[in-house]
């Protein structure tokens, strides 16, 4: 029943994303329309892949740091990606994929830095240190980003600002294809870690006694979740709250077993982001809102509601 609802939601989200948009396409001409084929369908697919990846990354990181309020951007990746992108804009780096590649490189740089800090004594990955290092690296990157933006001229600044708030307007079949090839590996790594992540909720030592190879597990999950987030941020900027809200709702409705939770998060995250992107395109047409603003406008009240419920029980 719950699954049918979720699959139904995903289907509705996809259909709406294809049907609705600033340009009106009559139903009869749907199949032959160039707008549908080369703009809306790839964009809907991209929204689905990005939203799903962010939600899976969020659910996995929550299990890794044993905190249900963790978010994929908590570990400093958004700061790194933002810095990479803004640096590329400020330095007038051009080329077909300059911005996504720069953001991806920035996110990976932040990931490597946080990971290095998190390796306590050179061997064990400590989730608490990881969190603190993430916050520190993120704050530092944001400071540098703001410095770069404040030195740039006005038009560039607006581009950088809009990019940081996220958007899927760069969607094309090429980006869908790149993600389609890239995403399966980190997603499979996380899916294979689903059961040991259940054990990790008990703490590291009890998880070891139950048969989990904890050190390897932590590294695997951290790197795979970061790679998902880095790819998402590279093609769509920083889209907040999907990675926090969706796993949270999944946990409320489906429970905390990650074998169920991760696929639920993927479908739920994909649906939510594609609905949010449709709203972002239609709400102030012909202009477009950054989709990160839509997810924040929906996500923050929802989050406040969940937080109230959570603190009451």
């Amino acid at each position, binding site marked *: 029943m719950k699954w049918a609802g979720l699959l139904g939601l995903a289907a509705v989200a996809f259909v709406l994303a294809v049907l609705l948009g600033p340009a009106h396409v009559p139903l009869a001409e749907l199949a032959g329309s160039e707008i549908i084929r080369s703009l809306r369908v790839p964009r809907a697919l991209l929204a689905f892949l990005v939203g799903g990846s962010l939600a899976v990354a969020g659910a996995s990181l929550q*299990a890794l740091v*044993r*905190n*249900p309020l963790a978010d994929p951007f908590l570990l400093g990746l958004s700061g790194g990606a933002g810095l990479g992108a803004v640096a590329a804009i400020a330095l007038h780096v051009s080329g077909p994929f300059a911005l996504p590649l720069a953001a991806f490189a920035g996110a990976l740089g932040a990931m490597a830095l946080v990971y290095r800090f998190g390796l306590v004594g050179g061997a064990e990955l400590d989730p608490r240190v990881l969190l603190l290092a993430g916050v520190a690296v993120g704050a530092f990157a944001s400071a540098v980003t703001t410095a770069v933006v404040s030195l740039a001229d006005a038009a560039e600044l607006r581009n950088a600002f809009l990019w940081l708030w996220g958007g899927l307007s760069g969607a094309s079949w090429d980006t869908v294809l790149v993600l389609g090839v890239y995403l399966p590996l980190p997603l499979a790594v996380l899916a*294979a870690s689903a*059961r*040991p992540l*259940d*054990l990790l*909720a*008990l*703490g590291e*030592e*009890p998880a*070891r*006694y*139950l*048969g*989990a*190879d*904890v050190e390897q597990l932590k590294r695997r999950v951290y790197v795979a979740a970061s790679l998902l987030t880095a790819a998402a941020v590279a093609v769509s900027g920083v889209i907040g709250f999907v990675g926090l809200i969706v796993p949270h709702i999944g*946990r409320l409705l489906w*429970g*905390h*077993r990650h074998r169920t939770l991760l696929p639920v998060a993927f479908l739920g995250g994909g649906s939510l982001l594609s609905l949010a992107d449709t709203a972002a395109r239609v709400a102030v047409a012909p202009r477009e809102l950054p989709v990160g603003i839509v997810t924040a406008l929906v996500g923050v009240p929802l989050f406040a509601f969940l937080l109230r419920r959570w603190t009451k029980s």
Partner: protein
Amino acid sequence: MDQELILAVDRATYRYPGAPRDALADVPLSVRAGEFHAVLGPNGSGKTTLLRVALGLVRPTAGTATVAGRPAQAWSRRELARVVGVVPQREESAFPQRVRDAVLLGRYPHLSLWGAERAEDRAAVERALAQCDALHLANRWLWTLSGGEYQRVRLARALAQEPRLLILDEPTASLDVRHEMELFERVRALADGGRLAAVMITHHVNLAARFADAVLLLAEGRAAASGTPGDVLTRETVERVFAWPVTIESFEGQPQMIPLRRKEPL
């Protein structure tokens, strides 16, 4: 008839990196199927370090630890969890869980990477719950359990691993008399079943003396004494190790320790 040797710790020594002295020095421990061993000792005497060495979590600086004939360090965590079940002293519960799901975690070392739980896994969970008198709790949330019920569920999880060695780290801390006794009785019964060996780290000198086949008394990382409760728990040894005056009485053929009041106030 000699039962199979399941755990053999031989002159194990371990020093934590940078520590001034050995946390464990020359400690022996041999456990056979059907036996119930108690490990006693003051706080910081090396009980938990012994557990970590025995389970291959740290490599002994000298001596050896062997589980079922194979060096403890040579086992993968997963393989070892099929042979040894542990009820750890402390654990977290980051996400709320129902009792049956919690016990099902004990099946992890038996499950394949992608496969779902099989009928035999569900059967093992029900069996473990029944052994711990916890079947009626199966659908409860963990957080609604009393301390005694919670310990029973954690024991059931370790039994769901279908281990040959069961290790309990201070399982009766914060339990009342009835639940303490129930836990000792249950572990004794499991050992008497013949296939399982049990090692319990505990502060209950008197219950250990009445229930365990053998006692290892640790002091500052060394074995102050080991053997049957009657051999180990003499007045001289207990007073020296715990640094407190005691008298030893006999009850049902086993020594029972009674700590004495000090003559002068502290």
